[in-house]
């Protein structure tokens, strides 16, 4: 069960962003093809099953699932908007508030902690000057704490989109952040 806290820094960040609702929300044609291909994976009338995969496509397109984006997805799947909101808010991967260019999802669970996960995380937060759930002032990074990423033997671990960064050390974190800041 996820409780959403809108943090002050993020509200600020949201104001600074060009709000997505001023843009037209519409998948490019190639993504729409993909949407139709996905819907065909399920029996006739069961297109609701496509909801999670399509929310992933939407997030890849617009970085976060704004109400406008979710309404658009609802329209595509002939669902009522609330069916999309209740699902998007259940799963941790969908961002319901604006995020930075790189969302760092950091594993905070026991096995990673055994490998020094807490110290490395403290270092990451200090380096970016932000706390869990916040976005850096330049809009480049957001950090989130997540639970076990099924990579415990290669911990500490974080993920940025589909990419895993494993066996992290403070030095590796510095290198990754520098690389991504370019």
């Amino acid at each position, binding site marked *: 069960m996820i409780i959403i806290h809108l943090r002050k820094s993020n509200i600020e960040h949201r104001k600074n962003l060009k709000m997505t609702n001023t843009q037209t929300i519409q998948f490019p044609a190639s993504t729409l093809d993909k949407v139709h291909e996905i819907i065909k994976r399920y029996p006739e009338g069961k297109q609701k099953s496509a909801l999670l995969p399509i929310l992933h496509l939407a997030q890849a397109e617009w970085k976060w699932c704004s109400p406008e984006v979710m309404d658009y997805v609802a329209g595509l799947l002939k669902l009522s908007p609330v069916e999309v909101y209740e699902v998007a808010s259940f799963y941790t991967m969908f961002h319901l508030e604006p995020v930075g260019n790189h969302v760092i999802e950091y594993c905070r669970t026991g096995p990673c902690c055994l490998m020094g996960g807490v110290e490395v995380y403290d270092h990451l937060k200090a380096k970016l000057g932000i706390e869990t759930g916040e976005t850096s002032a330049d809009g480049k990074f957001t950090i989130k704490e997540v639970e076990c990423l099924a990579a*415990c033997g290669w911990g500490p671990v974080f993920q940025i989109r589909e990419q895993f960064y494993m066996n992290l050390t403070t030095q590796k974190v510095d290198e990754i952040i520098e690389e991504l800041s370019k």
Partner: protein
Amino acid sequence: MKILTEHIDVQGIETIDVFRKHGGYAAVEKAIKKMTPDEVTEEVKKSGLRGRGGAGFPMGMKWSFLAKPEGVPRYLVCNADESEPGTFKDHYLMMKSPHTLIEGMIVSSYALGANTSYIYIRGELMYVATILEKAIQEAKDKGLLGKNILGSGYDLELHVQLGGGAYICGEETALLESLEGKRGNPRNKPPFPAVKGLWQCPTVVNNVESIAATSWIVNNGGDEYAKIGIGRSTGTKLISVSGHVRKPGVYELPLGLSVEDFIYSDEWCGGIRAGHKLKAVVAGGSSVPILPAELILKTTNGENRLMTYESLSDGGFATGTMLGSGGFVVMDETTCIVHNTLTFGRFYHHESCGQCSPCREGTGWMDKVLYRIEHGKGRQEDIDLLVDVAKKIEGNTICPLGDAAAWPVAAAIRHFRDEFEWHINHPEKATQKGAVFMREGASWSL
């Protein structure tokens, strides 16, 4: 003896040509061309293979419960949600050798009479989904999937479904809800998925490793499989090892190996990292009871503890644990049990779907109480309070997540109560960076 990972390090094994060169897809040919679906099920029954997702339920028996009403589709859904802390074996297997799973999916779907099957994979493993989709396309191109497989008249479509980040979707009925595009709230049972599963149709849900093992069983026979292992623990098991060993990683071992050999032998984990001593092990993923060094190595009868379902649970919860999902978390003397228990408590609090009050409220209480003990604000009555909350969750919920949340806390207190007391009685010492309680005379004490 390796069944699933024999060729896993072969260069290019993720491609269908290399995979076939190493015997891949022989089971599909054999099953579809030479066996009836019931014969495949019969071999799986004979093998004694038990579900590798955690519960250890006999796979052949589960398959035989599948309802087969006329004119209603049946489904096989592979559970690749792998989110139990300490477990990363399915991730490893699918990422390195996707065809091992695809082959098992075809064989198993054929046995169950499913014409559409799904692999439900946790959303965080998006890159693995891409690897699987590529493998599926290769198999299709070779006529091993799709319409009229190998000219047999049998059709199978296989799809990969991404989850959205929720541990509870590993529970099979929550998984089905999620696959239907809903919140992952577990369903009341009965009806069981075998009767009313995906879209109310008969469905079997099996773990990645269970499904992958069926190919070898088809190729070599259930009796051969049953020869590996001890008693009712047949075959091999993938064990995910994390924590303070020299060589963390995924190992495929024949069930029956001794825990001591597994931890200390160079063939396996290679022992505890240099200069340190074994303190405790969580043997089967975060949900199973933690055991201190002496109890994980030997049962209270003084027998060597073995990597089997039976031996690990010898002694019940008083002095034993469970094989579970095979998430083997090893801790040396630098580990603070209270902190580790807090991360698990926080995990279950975060992952509770919130449907039942004992789980929703209880996991929240445990998380908060553990937090204050860890942060030097613990009260004398807190330890008993934790035990009480755990007891009130256990057995009183819709799905087993409630139990899974209660057990690790209860077990940590059972075996390491002094450590919790030390935190409460010496908050200043206990909250110092890196501070760990040393039990006097314990084998791991320095």
